[in-house]
């Protein structure tokens, strides 16, 4: 098996790039969701007259 394996650094780089893109992408999505949900809550309070 060892001789069949092309130990290619591109695959490792691609795997880590995919991992980081997923983590950072989801982090950005979370921050955007949190910001929008807080803005919506503030708006609902303004409309409803809640403190």
């Amino acid at each position, binding site marked *: *098996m060892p001789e069949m394996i092309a130990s290619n650094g591109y695959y490792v780089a691609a795997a880590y790039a995919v991992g980081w893109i997923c983590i950072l992408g989801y982090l950005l999505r979370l921050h955007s969701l949190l910001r929008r949900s807080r803005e919506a809550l503030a708006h609902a309070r303004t409309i409803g007259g809640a403190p």
Partner: protein
Amino acid sequence: MTAAAAFTLEVPKSGRWPIFGWFAVLFLAGAQITAFAISPPDRDMGDLQKILYVHVPAAWNMGICYLLVAIYSFRYLWKRDDRDDLIAASAAEVGTLLNGLTLVLGMIWARPTWGVWWVWDARLTSTLIMFLVFAGYLALRAFVEEPDRRALWSAVAGIMGAINYPIVYMSVRWWRTIHQVQSTPSTLDPTYTFSLRLNAVAVLFILIYFIRRRYEAALTERVTEQLSQAAALGGPLHA
């Protein structure tokens, strides 16, 4: 949902939870340094073995997410507390992300080692099925607007989906597959075990941080929804 139910939830506070984000950064940095600078290339796989430092922790932590989905879905069916539904949904979303990551990283590893991107073996197929089930779970939540019905259907779907995880885990033992059986510390070099565990802890901190933040966003949305309903019904607003 009645106007009276509008006062059951409070707006969440971040509190000390962001510290898990910093733990994640710290452990990720340590794990990457260990994986690339300390851990030597594998005799057979060479540097491709380093892909397993992210593939395996993603798969393990995906299991934790789906376990949380099952626990909080059961709790919702038992207590009918909206917060349990939202924790289950948050865990399902993060679990689906890790599930997708597990599949993609596995494919990137499989191409140079097995010679193919994908084979329909038991482990890969059952993991794909679980991904599709939870993608369906998230779609269900997006399409059902009535909160109680959405929570009830999601709890049932979440439990059904989580049942798949033991099948995925045992698939390499129950069926003859190209995917290898689980490694144990006795079958791995201690350097590899250390790197793997460090990465697993880093992904665990990411998981805790992500689920908590997603829960905060979902709970804030839910409180907003309740406020709007109460306002429409002319009730008082206290959130």
